[in-house]
């Protein structure tokens, strides 16, 4: 027998919104991808600005003098692994395994918090080495770009923790799996932005 009541309920939850739209696609998912497309433009502008100004250091320290590549490499690895734990949370949500979903969400949040903590430490170290926000065009564009990314990760962290609370209290509106998937899409997006920042800003010398 192909369909059980459990099967039908899962299919209904996941595709409920999609079935009632003119495109046959979930409006929530469509909206999220559109939002991520516009986010590409935001970060495109910030990365362009940094690439143009990274050679303009004035009297301040040069990028190579302040960047700590081993430390940033570990941070990058942590954020990359948080993408794995996030996709496992989404996978568990689709399997309706609440226990695993909660566990993977918490691990993702912990990895994200580690990354943000690393960024705060890095900014503090740079400031102590004489690289303030307005020291040079390089420092301003660097702090704006990486700061915007850090704010995005922090917003993602808040969403992860809020989602975990909502799942625990059974207060997720609509499809649970789709809600976890949408927050997962946002989380993966901050990861792919960091993939670009790590290569262009840290590994390629000015």
């Amino acid at each position, binding site marked *: 027998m192909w369909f059980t009541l459990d099967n039908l309920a899962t299919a209904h939850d*996941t595709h409920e919104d999609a079935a009632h739209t003119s495109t046959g696609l979930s409006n929530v998912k469509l909206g999220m991808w559109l939002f991520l*497309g516009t986010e590409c433009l935001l970060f495109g502008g910030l990365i362009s600005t940094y690439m143009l100004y990274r050679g303009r250091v004035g009297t301040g320290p040069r990028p190579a003098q302040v960047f700590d590549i081993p430390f940033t490499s570990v941070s990058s690895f942590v954020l*990359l692994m948080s993408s794995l734990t996030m996709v496992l949370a989404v996978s568990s949500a689709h399997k309706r395994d609440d226990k695993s979903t909660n566990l993977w969400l918490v691990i993702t949040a912990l990895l994200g918090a580690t990354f943000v903590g690393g960024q705060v430490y890095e900014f503090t170290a740079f400031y102590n080495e004489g690289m303030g926000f307005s020291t040079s065009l390089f420092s301003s564009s660097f702090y704006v770009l990486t700061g915007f990314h850090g704010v995005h990760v922090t917003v993602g962290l808040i969403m992860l923790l809020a989602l975990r609370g909502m799942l625990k209290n059974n207060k997720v509106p609509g499809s649970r799996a789709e809600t976890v998937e949408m927050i997962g899409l946002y989380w993966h997006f901050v990861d792919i932005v960091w993939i670009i920042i790590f290569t262009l800003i840290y590994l390629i010398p000015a």
Partner: protein
Amino acid sequence: MTSTAPDSHATEHGLSTAGYVRIALILAAITALEVSTYYVDFGWLFMPALMIMMVIKFVMVVSYFMHLKFDNKMFSWLFYSGLVLAVGVYCAALATFKFFG
């Protein structure tokens, strides 16, 4: 029947758990290679190698972790349109500063 149903449903949404772990290991290996370019002199290969590795990592996360490979093509169009526009903005800004800066 019920116990196997969630697995088959999950497969519709992407890879198995082992598949995701394999992708993460490949991403970690590429990251290690990227970091090695900071310590080892790759000569003229330095820049192209870094750019290729960055693009591979980007595409792998978008395709497998964000499920664009398995999802409706409309989502790919929405996302990649934004990305192409962003690259266009970068090229336009760079060209403007090169010729008029």
